[in-house]
């Protein structure tokens, strides 16, 4: 008994010390990046602001005081300050050299969209009208089609693939330039691509062909309405999920990983598998940062970053996520005390 007591005491002590930490989730690592000097400001021209976080660094463009050609500009990158620059273009070149252009400066959203303006020029897909009245898709010198009609032609960010949807002899198809082609049906919504460009999904309302939809609408409006209340999700690899009802809300790929999500009522699905019940109103995929296993998340609200473990951090400015082993890491920048640029990082 005498020997057991110290061990038990130690066990209780460890348990009491550690349990609250587990309950509260991991503590973020906080790092001061830079303190604004007197008169120095985060540059914010034309409704843009130059704070961008990457996995490795935080990049800032600052302005200070006045000059003949506008205020002198400075760049803070990897903790080092460069400048002054007189032109924004010069400051941007210094800031984003080797970072893939204006990475992370403007689009700040948790759902992924391949910026079609950033695609290599030789990989910009086009649609053309065929002399017989059909449409073709041209991508990297290769012609696809002709089809009756083509919609949503999107190239991946690296220009390696193009995806599009077609109506071919009254049948709808989701097609990838790498040869994958799967049947879809109903009324397709917008096509979504994964960040790595290897996957594509589309949600469709109903499961009939275009002609069947037209006929049903004309002959049996009640049946037509019932049909159009069903939603399905298709992937380029031939998977089909659904039907989901009228509560089907949104479908998207998340930045930072290549999982796709959709929300049916309060039920969140990851890659077609139910993972979480969410009570977030109004819900926007743009504000929702899920972990790679789909079981945890961080949510951007206008005044804080709220984690599914209940932790809350005020005023996040720029948010990125990335994988580190099994963990989905989230990193965000905040301006504290009106002058301190601080970066936080923790697992979701």
């Amino acid at each position: 008994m005498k020997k057991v007591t110290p061990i038990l005491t130690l066990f209780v002590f460890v348990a009491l010390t550690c349990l609250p930490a587990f309950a509260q989730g991991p503590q973020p690592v906080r790092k001061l990046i830079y303190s604004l000097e007197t008169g120095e400001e985060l540059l914010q021209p034309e409704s843009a602001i130059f704070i961008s976080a990457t996995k490795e660094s935080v990049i800032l463009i600052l302005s200070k005081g006045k000059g003949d050609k506008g205020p002198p500009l400075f760049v803070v990158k990897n903790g080092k300050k460069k400048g002054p620059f007189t032109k924004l273009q010069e400051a941007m070149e210094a800031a984003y050299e080797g970072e893939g252009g204006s990475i992370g400066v403007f689009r700040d959203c948790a759902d992924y969209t391949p910026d079609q303006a950033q695609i290599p020029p030789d990989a910009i897909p086009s649609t053309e009208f065929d002399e017989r009245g059909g449409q073709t898709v041209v991508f990297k010198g290769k012609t696809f089609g002709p089809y009756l009609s083509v919609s949503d032609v999107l190239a991946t960010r690296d220009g390696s693939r193009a995806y599009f949807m077609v109506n071919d002899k009254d049948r709808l198809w989701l097609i990838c330039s790498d040869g994958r082609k799967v049947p879809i049906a109903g009324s397709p919504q917008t096509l979504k691509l994964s960040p790595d460009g290897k996957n594509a999904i589309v949600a469709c309302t109903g499961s009939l062909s275009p002609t069947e939809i037209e006929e049903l609408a004309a002959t049996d409006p009640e049946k037509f309405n019932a049909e159009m209340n069903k939603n399905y999700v298709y992937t380029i690899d031939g998977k089909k999920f659904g039907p989901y009802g009228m509560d089907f809300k949104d479908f998207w790929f998340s930045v930072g990983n290549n999982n796709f999500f959709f929300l049916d009522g309060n039920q969140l699905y990851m890659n077609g598998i139910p993972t979480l019940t969410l009570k977030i109103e109004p819900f926007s995929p743009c504000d929702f940062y899920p972990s790679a296993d789909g079981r945890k998340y961080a949510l951007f609200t206008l005044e804080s970053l709220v984690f599914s473990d209940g932790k809350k951090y005020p005023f996040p400015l720029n948010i990125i996520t990335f994988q580190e082993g099994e963990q989905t890491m989230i990193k965000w920048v905040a301006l504290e005390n009106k002058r301190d640029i601080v970066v936080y990082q923790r697992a979701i």
Partner: protein
Amino acid sequence: MWPLAGVLLFLQVLAPLSAEEDYAVLFGEKYAEAEKFLRQNSWIADSLRLPPQETRIALAIVFPEIIRFKALEDKIQVRALKVLYIQYSQKYADFSVGHFQMKPTFAEKIERDYNRLFSAEEKTAAQIAPFETGDSSRLRRERVVRLDDLHWQARYLRLFMMVMEKLYEGRAFDDDLEKLRFYATAYTTGYAQGEKTIRRMMPTRHFHVQLLFPKTRYSYADIAVFYFNRQTAPATRVPCFARDFNDF
């Protein structure tokens, strides 16, 4: 009132388009998208609760901003600026939100002027309650949420028209086009700058549809007038989408 508006409309139908540039061609697809947006959201015109000609003027005032929004909506994100505005107020209030590209400073001013210029009876008739005053993080957050809501943008536009009528009541405008030029310039440069400054700014070319580094700038009022004329004139021109939008 209505017969006169009808006569004015008829005269405008006969009149040639006054703007020199064909902005439908210049802005191509984005001009067409902005037009389509207003067609598909006809509730905006209804929600303004203005006489027909005033409604046309109000929509023309925001039309250039819709073009800009359509050109940049996939690129520009003002999330960080919204956060900084809520956190630190005025210093970070200079950014534009939504289809009508309204700034928090514009909303603040409209709210203050609506509270100040309109009697309790007028507010009841307008069916818009006075705004809560002060400058707290909570109020700024509520304002940002309002600016993110298209219904509220339409309401702010209606309030802008009401406030302008109050502030510039009795000003003689040669015609509706001059009034539109004045109002559109006031909307884009700040209506509180006073009549003299607004009139001086009317021909200036500050408007562009690039995120940064614009090559060409246009007169905001000219674009508003061009849209207004096309809405009242018979469709004689077909927009050409031949030009690459990124060329400007």
